[in-house]
């Protein structure tokens, strides 16, 4: 807000009735116009027509109706792949959680004072995060063949980047005075971490771990489509055979499983934070 200048009160008085200076208002309007233009341009360029979507509603509903009633008998053969999916998520999350601990400590400037080491690990972490999970899975499937191993590998790498980033940023915001106190008692670096850092970041760490696990359950589903095992593979197969009622049954099963997992992890999270 622009306050009136004391010497020139009469001249500037009118300006104080606006919360933002004129210049800022003008800039915001311009940016808004550009964004709006970009939206419409993108819609045109990609031939995405909302009217057309509404025109095709009957097709959409037709497909939806084809999915009902779900073929409940198929659920039985979906249980094993579902368990496989959860296993992939558990194993990948565990690996990621273990590896992210040294990784995030090395890329937190409250712990590592050496600029070179700090920057190196920061960059590795950023590189890890630039690769989308589905791309990782495709690469690993082509390297190691179809199965759950490439799925685990892809999710480990993917969630490691995310987890290490979250954790290292938390470690960077801790109260370093508490570490100073531990150091002043003669504690070595591991003791400083265990006594000073761990108590401060543990609740967030557990929360991040659970979050990444939930994320992995959902991601491992998508990875099935590129041959990385789990329940995604059978959805892919049934979609190709146009067995929509079976697909629907699997989706319902999945929905229930995800809700159960998220409820459990929310309960756990509430206890620690």
């Amino acid at each position, binding site marked *: 807000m622009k306050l009136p200048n004391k010497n020139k009160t009469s001249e500037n008085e009118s300006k104080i009735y606006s919360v933002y200076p004129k210049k800022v208002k003008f800039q915001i309007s311009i940016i808004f116009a550009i964004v709006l233009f970009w939206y419409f341009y993108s819609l045109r360029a990609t031939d995405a027509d909302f009217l057309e979507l509404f025109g095709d509603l009957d097709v959409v509903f037709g497909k939806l109706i084809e999915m009902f009633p779900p073929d409940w008998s198929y659920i039985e053969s979906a249980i094993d792949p579902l368990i496989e999916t959860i296993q992939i998520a558990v194993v990948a999350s565990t690996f990621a959680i273990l590896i992210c601990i040294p990784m995030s400590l090395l890329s937190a400037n409250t712990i590592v004072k050496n600029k070179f080491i700090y920057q190196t690990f920061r960059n590795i972490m950023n590189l890890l995060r630039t690769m989308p999970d589905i791309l990782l899975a495709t690469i690993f499937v082509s390297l190691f063949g179809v199965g759950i191993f490439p799925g685990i590998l892809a999710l480990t790498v993917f969630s490691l980047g995310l987890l290490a980033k979250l954790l290292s940023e938390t470690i960077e915001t801790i109260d370093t005075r508490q570490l100073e106190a*531990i150091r002043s*008692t003669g504690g070595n670096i591991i003791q400083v971490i265990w006594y000073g850092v761990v108590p401060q970041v543990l609740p967030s760490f557990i929360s991040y771990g659970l979050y990444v696990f939930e994320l992995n359950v959902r991601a491992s589903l998508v990875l099935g489509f590129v041959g990385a095992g789990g329940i995604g593979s059978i959805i892919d197969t049934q979609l190709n055979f146009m067995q929509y009622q079976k697909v629907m049954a699997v989706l319902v099963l999945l929905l229930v499983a995800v809700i159960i997992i998220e409820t459990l992890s929310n309960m756990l999270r509430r206890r620690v934070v």
Partner: protein
Amino acid sequence: MITFKDVSLVYPNGTQGLKDINVTINKGEFVVIVGLSGAGKSTFIRSINRMVTPTSGQLLVEDEDILKLEGKSLRKLRTKVGMIFQNYNLVNRSSVIKNTISGRLGHTGTLRSIFNLYSKEDKMKAYDNLKRVNMEEKVYSRADELSGGQQQRVSIARVLTQDPSIILADEPVASLDPPTSHQVMSYLRRVNKEDNITTIVNLHFIDMAMEYADRIIGMRDGEIVFDGPVSEVSDKTFEQIYNRPIRDEDLRGSEENETSEQE
């Protein structure tokens, strides 16, 4: 005994923290360092346990030049030199006893400390020290549940658990109200007398310095501008040290006079 010989410290940004400090502090003394903020009090005190490292000169602690210490020998020095901070610096989410026993870290192996395998004597020591500062009833409370004064008392217990021969206190009462300030200073004073621990305290309150110190060292701009026993100190001395007349804010006020200024 602590001896500074031509000790200077220049921070990486060019600020001169200490300028040619020459001073000897004897075993068992209770020394108060006074000076305005930025005078170099903190730098002085933190040099003694090498939380900062002077850039030239010699600093002898019990006849050992500590400026060259590294790694293990540096940690050994720190076990002998305990430190108390303005903001208590307890690990907030840990219990009082865990904070106190962390004073033993320098004496305990890494693995033992990770699994809390402290010897019985260590645990007794931590408990006894909490008792000395009247905090034994809060053993399992979390540190952040305590009031400021209580936290500072726990931090005294933590330092005592180190079995130090020197205690450094960096503005230990600056965040406390007058009655609590006096309580904390009394504990420090008592420990100094009972255990014969050399105690060096940074303060900027003139009246508290006068009340608790054996000896006062005045600092200005990284230099020692006064050094002498309390008996030689008058208001004039402080005006010299501060290089300005004494103001109300330089006084903490007595235990009864609670209405006086609070930070």
